[in-house]
């Protein structure tokens, strides 16, 4: 079985790898590029732990054929922080106790980023809708929703 060359932008940096046929983007990111921030949860599209942004749009990396991102820009949680400085969403998650075991957190943060990038002051209902594809099994969703609202531009989020 021949491998397919794959080039894309990973958190602003060009990467090139060879992938086996049928390999999903999550495996390519974790095993070939070494970015462990997207998590494997269900492999079925039900949990959202593997969420990444592809050209700014929220996608499930476990259901994305790796070679379809050739030439595109993939953003993961690893690219969210700016050097030692946390992203406002990360800071809000920390301050609002929005993570317990932390397994869903990368997916929650990417889903929230996709929302805030196009809607800087979402309503609570919009935040709930945004994370509806992400399952959290420990905190309950309230602290996560509160954290996203707190991170929304200047705390001016509408009720």
């Amino acid at each position, binding site marked *: 079985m021949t491998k397919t060359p794959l080039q894309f932008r990973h958190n602003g940096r060009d990467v090139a790898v060879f992938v086996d046929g049928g390999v999903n983007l999550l495996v390519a990111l974790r095993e070939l590029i070494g970015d462990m921030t997207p998590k494997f949860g269900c492999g079925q599209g039900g949990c959202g732990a593997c969420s990444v942004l592809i050209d700014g749009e929220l996608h499930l990396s476990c259901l994305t054929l790796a070679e379809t991102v050739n030439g595109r820009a993939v953003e993961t949680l690893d690219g969210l922080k700016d050097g030692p400085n946390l992203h406002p969403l990360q800071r809000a998650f920390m301050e609002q106790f929005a993570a317990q075991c932390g397994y869903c957190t990368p997916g929650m943060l990417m889903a929230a980023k996709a929302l805030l990038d196009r809607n800087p002051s979402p309503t609570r209902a919009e935040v709930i809708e945004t994370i509806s*594809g992400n399952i959290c099994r420990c905190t309950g969703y309230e602290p996560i929703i509160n954290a996203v609202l707190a991170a929304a531009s200047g705390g001016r989020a509408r009720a």
Partner: protein
Amino acid sequence: MPVTVRTFASFSEAASALSSDRSARYLGGGTLVMRALNEGDVSISTVVRATDRALMRIDVASSRVTIGAGVTFAKILAERELTFLHAPARSIGGPAVRNMGTVGGNLFAPNPYGDFTVALLALDATVSVQGGLGARDMPIEEFLQSRERQSGALVLAVSCQRPAGADAFRYRKIARIKPKGGSVITLAAHLPVSGGRVSGARIALGSMAATQIRARAAERALEGRPLDDSAISAAAAAAAEGVSPADNALGSAWYRREIVGVHLRRLLSGLE
């Protein structure tokens, strides 16, 4: 197990590749085929893709809309001319699934999925298919009845008449989790009214048989009558006729038969 991925620039080349290989599956948004690969489905040895922009088109004419098979639910939700399809599109997945899942793929989605197809069935959609023998249009019912044999054919587009008004098309999905989750029952109804009476009603049900089906007895109960309490009661009483639901984690077959009439009554009464 590695599979061979074949990517084509034109849909006709992809269709030939698909029809000539029994173990090939067409990859649309990935929410069905990648899931199967992740679960180790060894029946798939080849994945066929097409990057053809023709599959991504939405054509809106005054009375008829045509939606390319590769159009995602997010694209439908962004299209103001397709507001009548926003409720079914919004009822699918979370935002990531709606950014990926396609109208064409939904035609193949097994229970408890395939909600968009329930809407298309009520709207008497036409499915354009490119097979080994060329392209043809078929009524969605015929497509669904032969769905198991359609995996070698490439769906190019679906088209349907635009409903006469916002009230003429109704949709309701019953799920355990809001706002997202597999379907316990999905219902859609197209209710054209002529001279105050229902004429040509089509009611479609999801998760009530192996594929999406029409509730023909309920349709007959409405035909030629005003949409009043007595007609709605007659349709609700007939809702379970001809259904063959299955047990799954979301609900038993018994439960689905018990509640389908309740939800059809709510749908027809315009209740939330």
